[in-house]
């Protein structure tokens, strides 16, 4: 079975810089109208970890769920 991933966003730490949005290869992420990160297509996430690696604010974490 394909792996699935859960994204944990600390909204209070996110500054809406858009870096994770730019690096996500699957267009999972968007900046919402409130200027914060929104996970719009969680089912598309491939767990590459780019968002977590590059977020300057430690605001997003990727967890693999069995």
């Amino acid at each position, binding site marked *: 079975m394909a792996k699935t991933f859960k994204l944990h966003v*600390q909204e*209070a*730490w996110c*500054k*809406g*810089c*858009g*870096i994770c*949005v*730019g*690096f996500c290869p699957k267009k999972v992420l968007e900046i919402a109208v409130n200027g914060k990160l929104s996970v719009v297509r969680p089912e598309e996430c491939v767990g590459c970890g780019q968002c977590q*690696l*590059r*977020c*300057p*604010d*430690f605001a997003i974490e990727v967890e693999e769920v069995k």
Partner: protein
Amino acid sequence: MTNVKDYIRQDKLPHIWCPGCGDGTIAGAMIRAIDACGLTKDNTALITGIGCSARFNNIMDFHTFQTAHGRALSYATGFKMMKPEMDVLVATGDGDCAGIGGNHLIHTARRNIDLTVVMINNQIYGMTGGQYSPMTPYPSIASTAQYSTFEYPFDVCELVKAAGGTYVARSTTYHINLTQKLIENAIRHKGFSFVEVISQCPTNFGKRNKMGSPYDMLMKQKEMSVTVEQAKDMSPEELEGKIVIGELVNRTDRKPFDEVYQDMVRKALAKKGEKL
């Protein structure tokens, strides 16, 4: 994999850095490097100067010490001499390290003291509002150069190499895994280790120079970078405006100052029949 948050003072988040500033991403890489080298919180000191880059010590959970502008290396020298058993790292900015602290940089490198220095080169004085620094590319717009700068930056890695630094490397925030790897090598290296990380200051450099979003600034770093290997076959003209990334110096022929000094102390004490 490293849980970066284990080494972060979470009560200090959200940190003071602007949206999209490279500092937080580099702090993450530094933490992963420290963890990969097996350093412990109790045996690691992080010393900074003044500037946005100096705020690494607010969020990173080690023995941290923010000092005077340009003087991080002097404090780190004192620290290492008193506590040679500790791993001492320095986070500093281009203004802090290569501007006001330039002379300290030369002589700390020359002495080859066992420190790991990460110089965040965002090419501007970020904290004070975007005055140009000795690392600002020519020509650029800065708050102190409304029409354009009119002077050239210098290659800080070449300077450290000439002064006698025994480990010298360069990377960017775009190449964040390479940055981590180079910081790891720098920590493991015995002697003065210097890693320059080209970073983005969207607020005080990017905006004035119409460089787009933080993501666009990262892509620009990617576009401008060539590896040390690629650079070998390129002419000086071809290398103009390029960022050469990778390991630039790695020499083991010189003992670090702190070791030589400890040896001397041991010898002097032995003469009196005493031990360290």
